[in-house]
C-alpha cells in the first residue's frame, strides 16, 4: 500500500532522508518516530506526493503508483502537521469543497464531520478556530474519501482528550477497514497505543523497524516489579540477585528490574523463604526510554 524504495531526499547540501526502504501493508498502522529534523515529515510528504524524491521512489496504492501522479493520490489522504485552511471559509464550506473534489456524497461528509466532533463549530469561519479545532477539521477532511492510504503528520499534537479519543477510534476503524496508516508522532504513548510497527529515523536513516510484538517483548524485558515486603533476609536477597543482579531492597520495598518472564520465579523465591508480599506493582519498560536509547544522545535539529 505504501512503499518507500531506496527513497532519498536532499535539500541543497543537506541530506534529509537516505535510502529509506519501508513498506506499510493494508490493515497495518506504522508509527514513524525520530527526533526533530530526522526526516519523518519529508518522508510522509513524499508519500503524499508533495516532495519529489531525489533518489528512489515512493509508491502508494495497489498496484503501487508514484504518489507524484495526481491519479495515484486518489487512494490517499494526508493530514499535515500544521493543517491550515482559508480563513474566510467556514468549516462546512471547507468540507463541501473537498467533498466535491473527492466526489463524495453529503451523507458521507456528515459522517466524517461527526467522527471529528466538530458539529457545533462547523458554521463558523475557520479564522475563529483554535489549533485543536483546525486539527479536527483537518481530520474530517482527511476522512472524507475513504482512501486506502492514510498519512498523518503529528496528528495528535493539538488535540484535547475528546479529540484524542475520536482520533484513536478513527485509527482503530482504519485498521479494521484494511487501510494502510503511516503516522509520525513525538507522543510515545500514542505510538505505543496505536502502532502495529515502529520505524525509527535518525538523521535521515532508518535505524529500526520493529514489529509491535517484538516491541512489546523488548519493553517487557526492560520492565520492573516493585514489591512491598516487610522484611527480607540477606540470603534471600542474594538468591534474588542471581536472577536479577539489579535487585534493590530499601525501606520495605524490593525493586526487581528485568524481563516479565522472570517475575513469577522472583515471587516464588520470596514466598518459599517464608517472607510476605503485602503489595506488588509490575510495569513494562517505557517506549520513551527505549526510543531514547535507540536514537542516542539528545541532538540539535538538523
Amino acid at each position, binding site marked *: 500500500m505504501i512503499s518507500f524504495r531506496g527513497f532519498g531526499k536532499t*535539500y541543497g547540501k543537506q541530506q534529509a532522508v537516505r535510502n529509506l526502504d519501508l513498506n506499510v501493508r493494508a490493515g497495518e498502522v506504522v508509527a514513524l518516530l525520530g527526533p526533530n529534523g530526522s526526516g519523518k515529515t519529508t518522508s510522509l*510528504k513524499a508519500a*503524499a*506526493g*508533495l*516532495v*519529489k524524491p531525489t533518489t528512489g521512489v515512493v509508491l502508494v496504492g495497489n498496484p503501487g503508483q508514484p504518489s507524484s501522479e*495526481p*491519479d*495515484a*493520490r*486518489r487512494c*490517499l489522504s*494526508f493530514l*499535515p*502537521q*500544521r*493543517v*491550515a*485552511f*482559508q480563513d*474566510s*471559509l467556514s468549516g462546512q*464550506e471547507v468540507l463541501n*469543497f*473537498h467533498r*466535491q*473534489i*473527492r466526489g463524495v456524497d453529503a451523507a458521507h461528509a456528515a459522517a466524517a464531520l461527526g467522527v471529528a466532533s466538530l458539529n457545533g463549530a462547523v458554521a463558523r469561519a475557520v479564522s475563529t478556530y483554535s489549533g485543536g479545532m483546525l486539527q479536527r477539521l*483537518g481530520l474530517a*477532511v482527511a476522512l472524507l474519501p475513504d482512501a486506502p492510504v492514510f498519512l498523518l503528520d503529528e496528528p495528535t499534537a493539538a488535540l484535547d482528550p475528546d479529540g484524542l479519543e475520536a482520533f484513536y477510534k478513527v485509527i482503530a476503524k482504519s485498521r479494521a477497514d484494511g487501510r494502510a496508516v503511516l503516522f509520525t508522532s513525538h507522543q510515545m504513548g500514542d505510538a505505543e497505543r496505536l502502532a502495529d510497527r515502529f520505524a525509527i529515523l535518525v538523521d535521515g536513516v532508518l535505524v529500526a523497524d520493529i514489529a509491535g510484538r517484538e516491541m512489546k517483548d523488548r519493553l517487557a524485558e526492560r520492565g520492573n516489579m516493585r514489591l512491598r515486603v516487610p522484611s527480607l533476609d540477606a540470603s534471600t536477597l542474594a538468591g534474588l540477585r542471581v536472577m536479577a543482579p539489579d535487585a534493590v531492597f530499601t525501606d520495605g520495598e524490593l525493586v526487581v528490574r528485568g524481563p516479565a518472564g522472570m517475575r513469577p520465579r522472583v515471587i516464588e523465591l520470596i514466598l518459599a523463604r517464608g517472607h510476605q508480599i503485602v503489595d506488588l506493582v509490575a510495569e513494562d519498560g517505557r517506549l520513551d526510554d527505549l526510543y531514547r536509547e535507540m536514537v542516542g544522545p539528545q541532538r540539535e535539529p538538523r
Partner: protein
Amino acid sequence: MNLRLFAAEELKIALRSRWTQIFAVVFAILASGVAAAGYVISGGHGVQDFARTSASLVHLVVLIVPLVSLMLGVLSLSLERGAAEVVFALPVSRRTILLGRLLGLFAALALAQSFGFGLAGLLVYSQSGPEGIGDFVIVLGASFVATAVFLALAAFLSADAFGRRRTRALALALVAWVVGEVFIDLAALGLATLLPSGAASRVLILASLLNPIGALRTGALLLVEGTGAFGAASLALLRFTHGPAGATTLIACSLLAWTLVPAFWAGRRLERTDI
C-alpha cells in the same frame, strides 16, 4: 470539473478578502474622481464626458491595476504551508489547481474593477450622456488585460512561495511593478539619448513592447485617444509598424505573451517545487 471547482472556490475567497473589497471601493472612488475632477482641472464645470474620462482613466488603470494584481495575486496564490499541503495532496494536477485559482482571482478582480468603472460610468452617463462610451469600454477591457498579465506574473513569482517565502515574493512583486512603471522607460529614454537615432528608435520600440506596462499604456492610448498623447517610445513604435494597426497587433501579441509565458512557467515551477 476540478478547474471549475477551484475557480469558484478562489472567487468566493477573493470576494470575501478585505483587500479585494478595499480595492473595489478605492478604485470606484478614484475612477469617479477622475470623471469628476478632470474637467474641473481643465477649466470646465461638472463631469467630463466618456471620451475625456476614458483617456484619464488609462493612466489610472496603468498605475493601479498592475500593482493590485501583483500584490493580491501573490498574497492569494502563495498559501500558508499547511494549506498548501492540504490542497496539493489532492488528486488534482498542480497546473489545474493553479489555473483554476488564477481564473477565480481574475474574476474577482474583474468584478471589483467593473464595480469601479460602473460607478464612474453611471456618474458620467447621468451628467454627459452616452457619447464616447465605446472608449470607456475599451479602457475597461485594457484593465482586464492588465489584470490577466499581472496575475500571470504574480503566479510566476509565487510558484515556490509557501510559508516564509511569501514575503520574498511580495517584495519581488513590488520591485517588478516599480521597474515596469518607472525604470524601464527612464532607462530606455536615457539610453536613447546616447545612441544614434536608428538604434535609439529600436531601444524605444523594445521598451514599449517588452515592458507590459508600457505596452498596455501605448495600446490603450492608441485605441482611446489616437497618437495625440504619445511619447517618444510610442511614436517610435508607430513609425516602425507603419501605423496604428501594426502597432496594435504587436502590442496585443506582446501582452498575450506576457500572460501566457509567465503562466506556463508558473505551472512548470509549481510542478517542480517541493511543498
